[in-house]
């Protein structure tokens, strides 16, 4: 899953029937330090996310694996709103190589 921030909303009246009722949000990709990357996607919302929230989204066929997106033609879905994120970086993992 990728980390992003909701920066906007897309409105579309004329759409395929199976998109009816879905909220479509613009999600800008974030680095782990919460700075914006240059990339963004339009994602269906399955968790009630709002603008400026930090979220996780899943892409590809996994995006259809929610109650609200099942069998619908979406390629990205917001599946969690991030409360907190801890990142640690260390040198070793204790795994030997032959």
């Amino acid at each position, binding site marked *: 899953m990728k980390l992003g921030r909701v920066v906007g909303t897309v409105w579309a009246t004329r759409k395929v029937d199976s998109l009816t009722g879905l909220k479509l949000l613009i999600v800008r990709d974030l680095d782990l330090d919460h700075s914006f990357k240059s990339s963004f996607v339009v994602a269906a919302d399955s968790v009630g996310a709002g603008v400026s929230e930090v979220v996780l989204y899943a892409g590809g066929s996994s995006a259809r694996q*929610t109650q609200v997106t099942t069998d619908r033609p979406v390629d990205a879905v917001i599946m969690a709103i991030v409360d907190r994120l801890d990142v640690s970086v260390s040198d070793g993992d204790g795994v030997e190589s032959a």
Partner: protein
Amino acid sequence: MNLARVIGTIWATQKDPGLVGLGMRIVQPLDFERNPIGAPEAAVDAVGAGPDELVITVGSREASLPFDVALLPVDLAIVGIVDRIDGDFAPPWRK
């Protein structure tokens, strides 16, 4: 399937019902010489991986297969913890 290192943890209260009770980590994908490749991503944890551990990840739709949930919107999962890696993965032209 790919190699990655666990570099963080994510907490989320508001999430897809299928994710309730599942741990989420941040992983840095690695090549088999353990050099970082690409940007870190979030992954659901099927094996109880801890900080700094070297793990095996699986992507795409297959990431939901380890979990006994009908609908699970995840595209990356941790499916193994690496004990040891055998082999020489340094390409000759880099030696």
